[in-house]
């Protein structure tokens, strides 16, 4: 606490007491979490930057990270923009560098826009990793892939194919147009559809911004014009249940025009139990973030595999590492039978 880094006046106990009493006025009852522990070189703080702090998906990732951090002796600082916004992430990174944490890990909203700030963090001796959505390769040390992108893309396609007799025309709702994970899955979906499901066609791709209100509006608008020619709706960003709502508002039976793709269990739980969504696919964000903390710890200790190898990750066992990418595993398909086991 007494490492002197600022000017003397404001480090005075008196000034701090005044500050603390002001704190009571300014942010009373805000449910603040732990104050930062810091220090140069020996920090045990890992800054975890989600795409948006208000998303239960990332809250679950935060919980997984906390579990691993407790086991390995780190603390997690969960900070980021409250709506998905690359500029907000850049500001968060720049501010976090001042905290001199051991590591910064991020789900990139835009792989390139966050790169200069992440490079500055690496230049300051901070370990930088990405999880969930990768960033530019030279702006991070490694990436934690929640599940193989190819298997995710196949899961998205196969779950829909089984419901539409392997044919038809589809609307695809992504998250943001620049999100790297979305574009990777779409890039895997297209050849897979062409080779294994040649009678299925993606008619249009629209961004839903991971936001139920936007998903509702884009699906309604699209279906109002293309109701008769659309077989089903893929949602691979957040807000799948809003697509079902959009169909119902237009008088379409969701059984006749299936909604499938990637989902957050809490968002679709009711719809899956009601049968308006048959099944959907995802991975466990908590496991991804849990593995991430183990990878960061290994990197700091110098045991992270250079090139290909395996990474011991606590309860997840040994994970394979290929060229700086840690693979956590396969996607999970949620159905009425298993969805109640997931809490995010």
């Amino acid at each position, binding site marked *: 606490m007494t490492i002197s880094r600022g000017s003397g006046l404001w480090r005075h106990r008196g000034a701090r007491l005044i500050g603390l009493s002001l704190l009571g006025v300014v942010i009373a009852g805000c449910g603040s*979490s732990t104050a*930062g522990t810091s220090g140069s070189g020996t920090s045990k703080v890992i800054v975890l930057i989600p795409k948006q702090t208000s998303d239960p998906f990332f809250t679950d990732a935060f919980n997984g990270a906390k579990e691993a951090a407790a086991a390995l002796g780190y603390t997690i600082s969960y900070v980021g923009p409250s709506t998905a*916004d690359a*500029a907000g992430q850049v500001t968060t990174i720049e501010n976090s560098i001042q905290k001199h944490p051991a590591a910064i890990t991020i789900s990139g909203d835009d792989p390139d826009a966050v790169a200069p700030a992440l490079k500055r963090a690496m230049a300051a001796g901070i370990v930088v990793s990405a999880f969930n959505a990768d960033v530019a390769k030279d702006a991070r040390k490694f990436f934690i892939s929640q599940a193989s992108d190819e298997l995710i893309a196949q899961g998205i396609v196969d779950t829909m194919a089984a419901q539409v007799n392997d044919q038809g025309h589809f609307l695809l709702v992504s998250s943001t147009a620049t999100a790297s994970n979305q574009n990777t899955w779409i890039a895997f979906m297209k050849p897979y559809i062409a080779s294994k499901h040649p009678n299925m066609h993606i008619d249009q791709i629209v961004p839903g911004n991971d936001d139920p209100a936007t998903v509702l509006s884009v699906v309604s608008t699209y279906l109002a014009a293309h109701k008769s020619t659309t077989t089903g709706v893929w949602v691979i960003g957040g807000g799948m249940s809003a697509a079902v709502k959009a169909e119902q508002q237009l008088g379409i039976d969701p059984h006749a025009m299936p909604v499938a793709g990637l989902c957050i269990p809490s968002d679709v739980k009711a719809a899956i139990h009601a049968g308006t969504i048959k099944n959907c696919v995802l991975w466990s964000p908590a496991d991804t973030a849990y593995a991430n903390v183990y990878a960061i710890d290994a990197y700091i200790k110098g045991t992270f595999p250079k090139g290909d190898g395996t990474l011991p990750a606590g309860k997840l066992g040994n994970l394979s590492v290929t060229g700086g990418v840690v693979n956590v595993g396969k996607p999970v398909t949620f159905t009425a039978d298993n969805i109640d086991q997931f809490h995010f």
Partner: protein
Amino acid sequence: MNRLAIPRDLARSAGLVLLLLGAMAVFTALSPDFLTSSNLLNMARLDTENGIIALGMAIVIASGGIDLSVGAILGLSSVVLGYASLHGVPIGVAIGLALGIALLCGIANGAMVVLLRLHPLLVTLGTLALYRGLAQGILNGGAFSNFPTSFELPGQAYLGTVPGQTLIWALVILVVYVLTRMTASGRKLVAVGINELAARFSGVRIGAVRMAVYGASGLLAGIASVIYTSRVFSARGDAGGGLELLAIAAVVVGGATIRGGEISVIRTTLAVILIGVIPNGFVLAGIDTSWQFVAVGLVMVAAVAFNEVLFRPSLIRT
């Protein structure tokens, strides 16, 4: 200028400085990393774009107008820069094009306000959508980030430990201060904001003033855009989304009446710094950032209440 102007202005500035010191004291108490020269310079670096745009907004509001399109101009200007660079235009020329487009966007706003006699709120609400739409259309929702390394100069360079763009901000503050406070143009600007009719009868060319005002706002958004684009090294159509509200907030927190006729370069700048301290302090103190808008809101309400309630003419003794 009435006799109250000086003490009232001083008191307002003092109020803002107190709020700022209060917020800084809180964060200093919460994090040892807050009050360091490195972090203060980091904040100055991150506030630069907002600070430059807010000065443009201060000029527009002083004239009795409003410019909701500044964030969209930043986005369009950024995309033009990226698009030009993508097509092999030398980076210096691309920067010139980006500034030119921003100026043009501002002048187009001014032209619609002056020639078509439309309310600036309606004009710039329309051009907000128009400029943003163009920005997103040109890059087709994508992003461009293969700039030459020389483009790091506007937004990633340092002079010693001082961020380069902060020097640009300081220069802009100086120029706007001199132009609005010490020249006839500045007095004309305020005259138009106080009473358009009286200004007209005093021989002020209202149309010319308005065009210049919106042109300046556009150009300043363009300067902010070049810095922003260089800082994130990526051109995106959604860059600068929501910046217009932040800029308006800074002007109002700075104590200028939204009805026009007043400008304070210093207080607007102080307000930008005050608003910028909060996200920084939250990250350093490890406070859940979901709550930061609560703090921003409280600070803004406190500042506005201070300005509006304490300094109502009836409460001021001469």
